[in-house]
């Protein structure tokens, strides 16, 4: 209890003052006096604040609220108390001992800077980086793009379990010829910027992708699940659309910029990388969804020009829908539009088509389906 002996630092010099602390007779001030301290100080009790988060269990360091230029509105003077009874008394009688005091306008300042930072980042992510990516993708020399595409395809193959380069690639003379025929039929009425190169990977996944520079990869699972050649043709037309729109290239350029930005924002705390990855995925999902929609339309047009029935394309989406057991990934997480909508669109388009003819005959279709069968 009061009074008690303590150390005092006046905030002006590093010299220690041994002081006597007592409650003023008005009961709202603390009197601090000592031989080396003149004049004696009278600190209002309501202004007293203690240092927070200290490892010092046996001591309590007091200061008081004061208007300063410091990071917090605190008097630089320090009263160091080690008397247990006194520490106890302060804890019990001063409810605002550990209160945080903020200057007026702090939140407005934070809000202003937060707003400016958010605007800068959003501008970068949604306006500047995509625009830069678009123009960079346009001026990128095609041969470099092709080299990069080969690199990506090779990486993908390794990722899917190939022990050596080309280890997953399926090829047979009849199958290759069927694929070439399908490609020619789809592209002959189109002014193509790229030479499309098609690979079939020996993998059960129901999927296909386009790499930069005209590399298109279809998985064995996709061809096997298809009932008609038109289904494969629809998917192929869709991937060709990605190639022609340079989607993969633009995507790679934009992703590098925004991934770097997101990692910076989230910082280096534990788990930051995982969160940045999810953020980047959600961001790229919104872009690719748009690109997918455009590619679908392009594909339907291509099928129409080649007189290929787009019901096949619709059936492929039905197939895809079945494989997800009706569990739709929420659209903000998914990189593709809802499959049901895509199937409906393709079916509606098919209803307007008249003179369609088969894209492959039965022999060619079977050759394509067995392209991954080992010939031995």
């Amino acid at each position, binding site marked *: 209890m009061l009074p008690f002996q303590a*150390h005092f*630092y*006046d*905030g*002006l*010099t*590093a*010299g*220690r003052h041994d002081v006597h602390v007592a409650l003023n007779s008005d009961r709202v001030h603390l009197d601090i006096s000592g031989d080396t301290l003149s004049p004696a100080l009278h600190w209002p009790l309501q202004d007293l604040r203690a*240092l927070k*988060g*200290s*490892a*010092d269990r046996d001591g309590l*360091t007091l200061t008081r609220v004061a208007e300063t*230029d*410091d*990071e*917090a509105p605190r008097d*630089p003077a*320090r009263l*160091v108390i*080690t008397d247990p009874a006194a520490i106890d008394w302060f804890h019990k009688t001063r409810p605002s001992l550990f209160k945080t005091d*903020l200057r007026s306008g702090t939140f407005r*300042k*934070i809000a202003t*800077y937060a707003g400016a*930072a958010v605007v*800068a*980042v959003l501008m*970068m*992510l949604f306006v*500047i980086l995509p625009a830069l990516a678009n123009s*960079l993708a346009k001026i*990128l*020399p095609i041969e*470099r793009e092709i*080299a*990069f595409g*080969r*690199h990506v395809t090779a990486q993908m193959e390794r990722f899917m379990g190939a022990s050596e380069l080309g280890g997953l690639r399926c090829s047979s003379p009849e199958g290759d010829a069927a694929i070439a025929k399908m490609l020619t039929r789809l592209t002959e009425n189109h002014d193509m910027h790229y030479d499309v190169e098609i690979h079939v990977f020996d993998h059960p996944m129901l999927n296909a992708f386009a790499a930069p520079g005209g590399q298109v990869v279809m998985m064995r699972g996709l061809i096997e699940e298809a009932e008609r050649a038109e289904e494969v043709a629809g998917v192929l037309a869709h991937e060709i659309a990605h190639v022609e729109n340079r989607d993969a290239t633009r995507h*790679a*350029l*934009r992703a*590098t*910029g925004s991934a*770097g*930005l997101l990692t*910076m924002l*989230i*910082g*280096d*705390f*534990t*788990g930051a990388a*995982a969160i940045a990855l999810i953020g980047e995925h959600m961001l790229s999902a919104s872009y690719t969804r748009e690109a997918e929609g455009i590619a679908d339309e392009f594909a339907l047009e291509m099928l129409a020009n080649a007189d290929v029935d787009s019901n096949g394309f619709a059936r492929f989406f039905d197939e895809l829908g079945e*494989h*997800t*057991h009706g569990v739709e*990934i929420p659209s903000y997480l998914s990189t593709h539009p809802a499959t049901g909508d895509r199937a409906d669109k393709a079916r509606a388009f098919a209803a307007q088509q008249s003179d369609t003819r088969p894209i492959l005959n039965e022999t060619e279709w079977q050759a394509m389906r067995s392209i991954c069968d080992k010939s031995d």
Partner: protein
Amino acid sequence: MNTHSSAPLSYHGEKGPLFSLAFKTALLTLITLGIYRFWQKTRIRKYIWSSIDMGGDRLEYTGTGLEKLLGFFIAVLFLAVYLGAIQMGLFYFGFSMMVDPQTASYEEMIGYLIAIYASFFAVLPFLLFAVYRARRYKMARTRFRGIRFGMDNGAWGYVGRALLYWLLSILTLFILSPLAMFKLEKYMADRSYYGSGRIEQGGKWTALYKYALHMFIGIVLLAGGAGAGAALQNEALMIIGMVVGYIWFFVGITYFQIRSFAYLMENKTLNGEIGFTCEPKTGTVIKHYIVGGLIVGLIIGVIAAILGAGVSIIAGAMLSGGNVDPMMFTILPIIIGVVIYLPLLVLAQALALVFITQPIIAHIVETTAVTNADALNRITQRETERGVDADGFADALDVGGAI
């Protein structure tokens, strides 16, 4: 002469309170998607600073989480534009340099590698800038006996010197790295203050070589062992050479770090009259690394094994139910990551702070003393440091140590 009043430092931090503080704040950081990290850093620093005692007076850390948040926003404003554009420009450069690895010529491959490393060099000046600013912020927010520490603004001067000295040391195969280390420490120390008292770095850079000897021997053993083993087609010789070299190097570099820190500390003076003695033992530091590492590894290993077994039982039960949903293969790894991996990583970090970092800090603090401590009484207050970015750049660029 003035050694009549030597005041030893002591460290009073404990394992329990620091662990619960570190673990709790790290979980809060995870839950708030990283926003709490500014307060996490603040609270851990407050704990460690206030554990350091001289003559009954504790160090004080006065930084706040809010100012770190603000500093971060400011850094983002600057860096968002710079980094986003630079990174993509460089990637484009790398992209257009991209070559087919099967057909590339030697020159093309070199060009490709240069393009990749260029992005690192574009950010390097900012990293060095952040290093200086982070130290300045720490100084500006440290007080002792109510008196502020401080540091002059000189970040770009530091960037220039650091680039120069490190280039020099790389060109000399790191033989000149003690020069870089000494000069850069001197640059920062000479701009530092405690109140009105200026800190000065004395000593000579060549003195650091006697501590660097074993580090260099380790490198020679590593390279020599590998080289001799390869030349003689002797695998055993190669493995022995590399293992001995690696251990020698690890001990050597720890010895170098500890002894050169002590040398630099003992040759600092404050206000021209206050000095320091600093005698940490390399053996004790290595012991803390090994024992602490084993404890952390053991705890994490046991918990991971228990959780892993639990997950495989659940996953097994779900998969044996027949109807395997392909979606599960996408979602399951994410769930495992969020539920197990991240909290485990948080736990490992908190344990490492308690069992490795804190004991080493404690050892260094307790082997340090201030000579002529009475002269501290003549130190007077200094002005508040304005314009510190509160670690904003260091945070945005992932620069910074354990605390």
